[in-house]
């Protein structure tokens, strides 16, 4: 089946089997390997991407269901020139070690901060409860997200 959607601002068209998940489609067909696949059944959050602005698990969505949607992956939340405020904050607070979980945390945190730049620590913890990190112990991730809030308050996004 063909499916057409927008990824990081670019229109794409792929021919896929219905059973292909959006996560596999992004990685294999579109070579956007920033989206990581940990569990393939919805429990780890590594595969989180934004679909029409909402953070969703791309392993629990079919590529054919993305037809007509706007998808943003972790690649779409960075630029070559400089680190974004969220990336800088992750670096400053040592919010990653091996980095496997990081794309899922960045996409989730971006969605949260875009909608709720005034969220408190409790809300950040609640939202991040859907993402698993085996390295950091989470405290540094929560701090990084809280510290990045100011950047989202000023210009609304990024």
């Amino acid at each position, binding site marked *: 089946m063909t499916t057409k959607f927008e990824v990081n601002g670019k229109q794409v068209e792929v021919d896929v*089997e219905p059973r292909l998940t959006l996560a596999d489609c992004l990685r294999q067909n579109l070579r956007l390997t920033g989206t990581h696949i940990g569990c393939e059944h919805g429990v780890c959050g590594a595969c989180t991407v934004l679909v029409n602005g909402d953070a969703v698990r791309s392993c*629990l969505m079919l590529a054919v269901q993305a037809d007509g949607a706007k998808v943003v992956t972790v690649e779409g939340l960075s630029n070559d020139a400089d680190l974004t405020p969220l990336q800088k904050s992750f670096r400053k607070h040592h919010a990653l070690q091996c980095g496997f979980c990081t794309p899922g945390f960045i996409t989730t945190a971006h969605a949260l901060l875009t909608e709720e730049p005034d969220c408190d620590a409790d809300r950040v913890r609640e939202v991040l*409860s859907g993402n698993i990190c085996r390295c950091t112990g989470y405290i540094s991730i929560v701090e990084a997200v809280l510290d990045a809030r100011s950047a989202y308050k000023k210009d609304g996004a990024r």
Partner: protein
Amino acid sequence: MKLPPFEYAAPATLKEAVALLASHGGEAKPLAGGQSLMPMMAFRIAQPSLLVDLRKLPDLKSIAIDKDGVRLGAMVRWRDIQDDKRLAQAHPLLQAAIAHVAHYQIRNRGTVGGSVCHADPAAEMPGIALTCDAEMTVMGKGGQRVIKAADFFLGALTTALQPDEILIEVKLPAWPAGRRFGFQEFARRRGDFAMAGIAVFYDPDAGGTASNAHVGVIGVGEKQRRLGKAEAAINGSTLDEAAIAKASAAASAEVEPQDDIHASAAYRRALTGTLLERALKSAAG
């Protein structure tokens, strides 16, 4: 794991969707948010031959509120319930319960209809539907019918739905202004399925005497259920310490809990009573 192969369709009308479901000899399944069905397929617990995606069907995404109650379209997401400010008045118990469903990303996709049709014994929405005497409107080859929650949930992951039927709407009866309620659940981590959960409401008269008590439990035993003896202990009482203790003891005695890797049966029995006690205290408070 990768998903087993299947055919896929995203029809634009209910009629087409029902016809597609009926055409595959019971092997086709509706796809809503996919947050339960996709993991089941990854584990090969489900291997449908055809997925009928409901995402293009009109009219299943609205929350309608009027004097008769709250009507939740089958494709209403957890997120939509949390964001709807009207529900704080129109059905505060629903909002309190849904706050415990899954995680942020899953709440952006998971739906009322998917949860009700999946019928996990520990899931919040089926528990609320049963506790609140909800009515499910379903559409199949033979037309539309309405099923009461008490007749809808038959067991773990089992409902009265026929293979060609699609759930359209869940109707919760109107919520009177003076109603008292509580929702409590216990899970190891926020967003995980409940080891036990309690939903309770009652209508107090001017002197504070309770009537019309409804108590539902999730995560304990093979399906969500009402606790009639606990309800009887609440009705006619003023919910003083003694009445609360009596109701929670009744609840603990009444459940038929299971042992599993998450908790022992004895623990779940004790938890049921404790959660009812907390729910009643928060209701009174």
